[in-house]
């Protein structure tokens, strides 16, 4: 599904990713952990094509196609979703309008027609309900005045509606209370199937109790420095990065 080779990327003239390799196959769940400032969010932005994140070497292929040639919206159309570490507030645009425009944009990209208003409404209501989101919130402007946890849950509603092939979730668990974490985890597990993949960036192994990953990677100083199964997360929880001889971000 996703194949990243020797990825080097700079932000504001500073090299953040320094030769990163990562392969995610269909149906796999990968978790990435790592010290603050290691480059985890940077990786997620590079995968999604954010402006200002310049790839200086290496390649990123998605289902055999070169992602680096595509605009962010084309990548979304190809089926990539980014759950933001800090979801953005958009005053004046209702959640509903936003979701419908997003979904139909992706459908157009794939050569499909608009979803009918009735079908769309049904879909969104059902997904909001699954994620325990008050339907009233759908009428509100995107993320405006939402609490930290509400914003994260809103990301999950968007993911559920857009139904991506690859979800990159950047600290979706941060800021969630225990009940919300369980609900969100259920949402992620619902997406899980043989031809979908998930890349979860997290600081806490707690999420991994609910969404069990196939692989856990440690990203430090712009590279994947260690890969293991879920027990690696437990080790990290116990000993910390220093305890596993992984340097914090020296920058």
């Amino acid at each position, binding site marked *: 599904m996703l194949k990243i080779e020797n990825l080097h990327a700079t932000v504001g003239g500073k090299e953040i990713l320094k030769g990163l390799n990562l392969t995610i196959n269909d149906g796999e769940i990968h978790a990435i952990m790592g010290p603050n400032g290691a480059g985890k969010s940077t990786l997620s932005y590079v995968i999604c094509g954010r402006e200002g994140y310049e790839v200086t070497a290496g390649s990123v292929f998605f289902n055999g196609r070169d992602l680096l040639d595509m605009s962010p919206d084309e990548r979304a159309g190809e089926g990539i979703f980014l759950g933001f570490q800090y*979801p*953005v507030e958009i005053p004046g645009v209702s959640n509903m309008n936003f979701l419908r425009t997003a979904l139909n*944009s992706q459908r157009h990209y794939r050569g499909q027609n608009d979803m009918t208003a009735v079908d769309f409404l049904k879909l969104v209501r059902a997904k909001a309900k699954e994620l325990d989101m008050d339907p009233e919130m759908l009428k509100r402007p995107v993320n405006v005045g939402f609490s930290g946890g509400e914003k994260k849950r809103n990301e999950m509603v968007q993911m559920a509606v857009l139904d991506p092939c690859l979800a990159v979730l950047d600290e979706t668990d941060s800021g969630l209370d225990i009940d919300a974490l369980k609900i969100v985890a259920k949402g992620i597990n619902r997406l899980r199937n043989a031809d979908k993949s998930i890349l979860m960036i997290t600081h806490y192994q707690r999420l991994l109790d609910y969404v069990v990953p196939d692989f856990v990677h440690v990203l430090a100083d712009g590279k994947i420095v260690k890969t293991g199964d879920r027990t690696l997360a437990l080790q990290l929880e116990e000993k910390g990065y220093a305890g596993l001889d992984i340097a914090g971000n020296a920058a």
Partner: protein
Amino acid sequence: MKLYLDNPQIETDFEAVKASLPGLADLRRQAMARFTQSGIPGPKVEEWKYTNLGFLARENYLPAGKSGRQAEIRQFFDQAHIKDIPGPVVVFINGYFNADLSSLPEEDGVDFSVLSHNPGNFHQSLQASEGSSSLNDLNRALVTDGYRLDIAPDVDVEHAVQIIHIATSGTEMASLRTRGQVKLGRGAKAAIIETFIGAEEARYWFHMISDMVLESGACASFGQFQLQGRNAIHMTELHTEVSDHATFNHVNLQLGAEISRTELINSFTGEYASINLSGAYLGRARQSHDIFTRINHDRPNCKSRQLFRGVLDKGGKSAFQGKVVVARDARKTNADQSDKTLLLDRGAVANAKPELLIYADDVKCSHGATVGEVDPDQLFYLRSRGLDEDAAKGLLVEAFVSEVFDDLENERVAEKFRQYAAGWLRKEGAL
């Protein structure tokens, strides 16, 4: 350098056309004499520093001919007319009332008159804003028609009155000068929607001066939509007096014209009254919008709010000059002013000059003026969800402008406003 610029030809030309204008010969002559004394405001006149009128001094824009092609007129009418509002419609073509397309108000307590049909009213309306500026005098000298709307006390006018001004393609190098006069009696309530629309290619100068008086407890909603052709010069002046416990709501949309100038001059004449001015101006290459507001807080306990949003694409220009004056005894004044402009391209220019002059104590006044670009974080967020760049920008711009009409009471008017704005954004080359 002279502050005002002469039009050498205007007096002779005026002599030639004045007989064809409807009545008021003395008034016109006096006004023309005053105008030729002063002339066109030049670039050194403070109020006009953002809009250079020098080119107007080189040409005389004499009154346009009355008629035009029926098909063209019909098309503009259909475009401007809000059919969902079943109220009266008043149509002016090239500055003259048109009976065929109009259906005048007939409700009890709603007194409507066409100025050219009623010399008494016409005369009086020209005196309403006597001598305030040289352009005002030019309007007075060459005015062709206008309307007067008088609402009796306590009458709640059922449907909004629509007024449509059409400029046909036969208005090349001509002027359209009209007047409006509106009075709401004590406790009356009315809504007016005025639309200005005209031929895409013709170079014409539209100039309208309106006076509005709200008596005690009256409530007026007044919307103006400017959709003039791309070579037009569009100027409106609206002078409003608001008495105690009265409310004036104005919403303004500037979309068309090469040069637009919107003057909104407001005074409180009683206490516990409120004035809300809101507007959006959207401009692209070769376009310039100039919004000029005054709010004179001459009485205590009044409230004013101004909210303007501009969007400029490459080559577009705008100016917002908003002045609030709080007189010495205007205690407990609450005045809020906000003007924000979004630049879609570095090659656009927005000027803002908010002015707050406070001579009273115990007042709450604020103003904010910002010029910015589309937020890159918001743009990326939308694009990461599949919206292409144009769609994402369009959505953000619509949201930015929507603040202006979000709290419009009349949903049909808000919808029309939204449609116009969205149409502008979708127009080829907008983003």
